[in-house]
């Protein structure tokens, strides 16, 4: 092993205030406001209230305060986890967006579900008489998705952070003459994602056919879109740097040449390194397009960031990315 090239100092994690706002303050305010509304309905509500539905209707009851405390705690514990991740490891915008979307989306979705379920019980004296709560499930899905997307959108992006030092001299290179241009492209995919994702879509579609709950069709659409967005990526190395673009066009991940510190091949274990497959966040805020186990391209990027794509022939991609990054440094200096 050669001694590692000293990494540029990364500095503090950026945009911590916005992370605190979107992962902490917003979920807290949403959960508190929902609880306030629910408590203001208390005189109209049966005691206990219905909180769980089985195949044959209502099968679970609890008191209003316990329902509010339980769901509020779930939402806030998850939000706190997202907040810690964003503040400690949120060096890249995608990590901060994911955290903000999760925290805000979950708290809004759960609050919408609780308020929807309680709204259906207003004016009842016996919670067993409650009717259909499909609208509450729809409210949860739509509210959660819209709020999550808004929070992700409101998250500040990464500012341009050009490297101030050359690419690691020990990293692999492609011999390239001055008048040569080169590009590398490859399709990255994986059978695990396609099989597991396809099975999930079919399972929910099967449920949607058998159960009279229109919200399930919405879930089918969301899952299918997620599968389409996460299962096949076109990976490209060229004068624009590294681009990994989903077959749907979104998400697209980019690392410009002037932010490349070093590219190399790595061996990826999806579960151990990223906790699963797809567009993921791993240890130390490393962002990954993880579609299968095995060979992958890892790019160390300025600001203490790193990105991984599982793709065949990653050695060529890494060598070309280092070479083109050298070239772009030379161009800006000369």
């Amino acid at each position: 092993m050669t001694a590692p090239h000293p990494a540029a100092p990364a500095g503090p994690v950026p945009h911590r205030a916005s992370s605190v706002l979107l992962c902490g303050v917003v979920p807290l305010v949403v959960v508190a406001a929902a609880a306030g509304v629910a408590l203001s309905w208390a005189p109209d509500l049966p005691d206990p209230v219905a909180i769980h539905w089985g195949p044959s209707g209502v099968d679970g009851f609890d008191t209003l305060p316990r329902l509010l405390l339980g769901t509020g705690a779930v939402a806030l514990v998850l939000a706190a986890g997202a907040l810690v991740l964003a503040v400690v490891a949120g060096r890249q915008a995608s990590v901060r967006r994911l955290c903000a979307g999760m925290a805000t989306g979950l708290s809004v979705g759960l609050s919408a579900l609780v308020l929807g379920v309680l709204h259906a019980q207003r004016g009842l004296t016996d919670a067993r008489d409650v009717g259909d709560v499909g609208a509450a499930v729809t409210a949860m899905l739509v509210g959660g998705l819209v709020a999550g997307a808004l929070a992700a959108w409101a998250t500040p992006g990464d500012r341009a952070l050009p490297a101030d030092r050359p690419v690691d001299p020990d990293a692999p290179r492609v011999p390239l003459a001055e008048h040569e241009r080169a590009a590398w492209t490859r399709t990255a995919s994986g059978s695990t994602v396609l099989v597991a994702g396809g099975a999930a879509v079919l399972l929910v579609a099967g449920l949607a056919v058998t159960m009279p709950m229109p919200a399930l069709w919405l879930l089918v659409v969301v899952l299918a879109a997620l599968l389409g967005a996460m299962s096949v990526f076109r990976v490209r190395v060229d004068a624009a740097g590294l681009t990994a673009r989903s077959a749907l066009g979104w998400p697209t991940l980019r690392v410009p040449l002037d932010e490349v510190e070093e590219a190399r091949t790595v061996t990826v274990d999806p579960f151990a390194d990223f906790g699963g497959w797809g567009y993921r966040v791993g240890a130390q805020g490393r962002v990954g397009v993880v579609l299968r186990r095995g060979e992958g391209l890892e790019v160390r990027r300025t600001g203490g960031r790193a990105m991984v794509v599982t793709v065949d022939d990653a050695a060529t991609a890494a060598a070309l990315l280092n070479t083109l990054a050298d070239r772009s440094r030379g161009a800006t200096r000369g």
Partner: protein
Amino acid sequence: MLFRIDTASGEPLYAQLAAQVRSGVARGELRAGERLPSARELAGALDVNLHTVLHAYQDLRDEGVIELHRGRGAVVAARAGADLTELHDAVARLAQVARRLAVAPETVTTLVKEALR
């Protein structure tokens, strides 16, 4: 797959691109059914005219190396990846001999091109 073009070379750019796909298939680096980048993507990546890439792809299609599908782009043809082990061995021997006799690479390729005419 790595594509490279030499703007200082006398060989036209489309011919350089086509030659790389051919040798990629011959080396087994491009397998049958593998998708090549779309002409638009490759033209953008190499900063060349779209028609240069289309010209290369059309030549490769005429030779039976790739298939062009509307919508799906260029795919390496099933019969493109024939067993070329014997040819690889011969090329390796040729390179060995040329090196031993200190013949310039340009001279060797010219001789090969003439022999194939």
